[in-house]
């Protein structure tokens, strides 16, 4: 099932794109599992996603923890802690 994955800030720069449509294997049920799988896609992915403690995520634009489900999700965003204002 295809998911749009969005990347922001240095995660986007490391991965090399701000958005990609992916189709992770069955059993990729959580944000953490998705990140594990995404990290295998390229050296850029691997490096950008290496430090899990510095990553945050949103599923369908709702901010969630790493153990959140992505079942049925259309859009998952992965990014560093926010620094606005």
């Amino acid at each position, binding site marked *: 099932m295809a998911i749009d994955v969005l990347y922001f*800030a240095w995660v986007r720069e490391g991965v090399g794109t701000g958005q990609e449509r992916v189709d992770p294997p069955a059993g990729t049920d959580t944000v953490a599992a998705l990140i594990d799988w995404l990290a295998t896609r390229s050296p850029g992915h691997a490096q950008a996603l290496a430090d899990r403690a510095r990553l945050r995520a949103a599923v369908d634009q709702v901010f969630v923890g790493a153990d959140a489900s992505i079942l049925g999700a259309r859009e998952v965003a992965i990014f560093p802690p926010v*620094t*606005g204002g």
Partner: protein
Amino acid sequence: MIRVLVNAEPIDIATEMAAIETGGAGAVATFSGLVRADDGVGMLELEHYPGATEAALVTLAETAVARWSLLAATIVHRVGVMRPGERIVFVGVSAPHRAAALEACAFLIDRLKTDAPFWKRETRGSDARWVEPRGSDDAAAARWQA
């Protein structure tokens, strides 16, 4: 009345103040964040998560309006490239009395720093780096937990 705006245009204070000073307000509090000119940053870039950022700011404004019975709450955040002295963010609220306005204004800027998806990249000379989050921001946001 809630007004949330995220775009690349310079923030016009006179327009924003006029929008806030509406209908019966006795007290208006504002906060503006500017690109500091004193720490060597030549350029600041702000990135956001279109759609999700605006939704987070609307939620924040709605929370403040309900909690402090505000008459108006405005959050304007600029994105893209900015130079020292330019406004990054403007928060303004109006309320019948000053305590509500002052508290709600502090709440909005504190929580915006931790809850809204923005990312800042500073360029000093030829060195560009993403800004690291500050623990003091988490502490400032946490004190508003009801």
